[in-house]
């Protein structure tokens, strides 16, 4: 039993970390309606920066106390991802949606290549020798904070501006909303959150490789969020759960199915887009006997 618990800790942490990354993406994709295909790059940048801090900068500054070191590394990770997000978004957000997707993809490729060429963080072999500063507590407290902050954020002025921009940019501008800065804020904050997730990741696995920045990882997390439900925080976390849990569950499945899992994954995404754009979470919602959307009941009573 103890072994089972021990064994579950890392996957559980990975789920929490992926959930944080997914929440960051939800703000960008579901909140602002921007298709970022470089989300994993910000995750990786955050991870690398955090690791660089705890391995090089921290000790150089005489900081060895784990809690402090971890906090500062988190901040380093989030901050560097934020800056990177700014660098990408400022020029690219002036572009139409399709172009933005491609531009973020391009950025992801470039950053992956760049990371492979920096020897001090391990180059192509990856960054090793990182202290294990993360823990279940760190991950889930951070997850809780991020979730709470994002749900409060939706009701703030900026949060509403972002959603309005997503729904209709032209109408938003006609109401005085600076749509460019709304999109920018969403992108930058979402990427920073990915950076924080990366920072937690690197201190859990004690290793990170440049492959983490790969555009294929970005694609996968986008698709996972879409499947879970990009319109809600819960949906994105559900997507993260699917992303982490399925490979674990498939460990016991025959080889053939494991190899084909990406095929099913892709099929489910297409299915979701065609038939249930709000994702699996909306299917789940329909199963629960919650209070129905006011539209249904209210509409029944008039006109």
């Amino acid at each position, binding site marked *: 039993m103890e072994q089972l618990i021990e064994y579950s800790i890392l996957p559980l942490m990975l789920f929490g970390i992926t959930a944080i990354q997914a929440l960051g993406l939800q703000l960008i994709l579901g909140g602002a309606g921007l298709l970022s*295909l470089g989300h994993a790059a910000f995750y990786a940048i955050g991870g690398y920066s955090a690791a660089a801090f705890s391995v090089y900068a921290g000790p150089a500054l005489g900081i060895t106390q784990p809690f402090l070191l971890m906090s500062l590394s988190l901040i380093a990770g989030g901050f560097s991802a934020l800056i990177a997000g700014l660098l990408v978004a400022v020029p690219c957000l002036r572009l139409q949606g*399709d172009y933005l997707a491609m531009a973020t993809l391009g950025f992801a490729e470039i950053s992956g290549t760049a990371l492979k060429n920096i020897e001090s963080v391990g180059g192509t072999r990856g960054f090793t020798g990182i202290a294990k500063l993360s823990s279940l507590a760190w991950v889930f407290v951070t997850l809780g904070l991020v979730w709470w902050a994002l749900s409060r954020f939706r009701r703030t002025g900026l949060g509403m501006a972002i959603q309005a921009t997503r729904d209709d940019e032209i109408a938003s501008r006609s109401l005085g909303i600076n749509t460019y800065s709304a999109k920018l804020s969403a992108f930058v904050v979402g990427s920073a959150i990915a950076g924080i997730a990366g920072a937690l990741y690197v201190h859990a696995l004690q290793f990170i490789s440049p492959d983490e920045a790969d555009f294929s990882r970005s694609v996968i997390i986008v698709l996972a969020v879409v499947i879970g439900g990009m319109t809600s925080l819960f949906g994105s976390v559900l997507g993260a759960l699917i992303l982490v849990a399925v490979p674990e569950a498939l460990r016991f499945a025959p080889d053939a199915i494991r190899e084909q899992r990406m095929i099913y994954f892709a099929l489910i995404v297409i299915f979701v887009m065609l038939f249930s754009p709000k994702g699996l979470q909306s299917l789940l919602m329909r199963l629960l006997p919650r209070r129905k959307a006011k539209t249904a009941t209210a509409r029944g009573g008039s006109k």
Partner: protein
Amino acid sequence: MIDFIQYLFDGLAVGSVYALIALGYSMVFGVLQLVNFAHGELFMVGAYFVMYAISLGLPWPLALALGMCSVGFFAVIMERLCYKPLRGAGKLAPLITAVGLSLLLQNLVQAILGPNPQSYPASLPEGSFSNALKAIFPAPEKIQLPQLPDGLFDWGEIVVRHRDLLIFIVAVAVTLGLELFLRKSRPGRGIRALALQPNAAKLVGVPFDFTISITFFIGAALAVLAGLLQGMADNQVTPYMGISSGLKAFAAAVLGGIGVIPGALVGGLVLGIAERLLVGYDLSTYKDGAAFFILIIVLLLRPQGLLGKARMVKV
């Protein structure tokens, strides 16, 4: 300087392949304002199809024609099933679906045909399907492997391979042919009308769905041609050639001016040559990043591309 010119010629072939793929991106974007992420996979599937067809003994023109039709129709079906229902659902939904389709095709090919590169003559993996095919097409003793010309033009210090020139000429001919088609033929003019003025086009009776289908068909057919040329030139196909060449071709299309046919040719050639220059000047680690770098620069400085015109969005 001589080196530079040499590299210019060396980049023609790979640039021409990019150009042929870019034409598909350009056309579809022109009529639907959609980046068909799955287009690169059509190139990949086309390359595989043609390779297997030839390996089964079909003469290459037949293999090519068959490939173009099959993949062309596949593209049309793909559009009808996956993109058409999402018209009007905003810009995000078709994009995501396209990404999903791309992933699906890559993994399907990888699962069925194996992740390793294949060369001529390629053999299908063991199974009833391949046995059935072998029964229909008994392999002749000598498979007519398509050969690209081997010769060289020796112009003093510059050496140009016949095959590179041939591929280049094919790309130019196709581009010219396509322009002619778009300007002179009825369906072609319909495509142009839809791209330029969708509302007016619909009003004057341009058949929307049919025209979209033709656009996808042609784009896919050209991608198959590109697949044949690439497969022959490199003697290698992999399930991943779609993403790598496909995305680069998109960068080429944007560089030349997306929606502009000659732009795809120009963009493709520029990109191909740029890559060759990087390799030639010892910067080959940056070769793959070049496309994206160019893409971002173009999008920032001149989003309409080299040959495109700045568009105003009508509210």
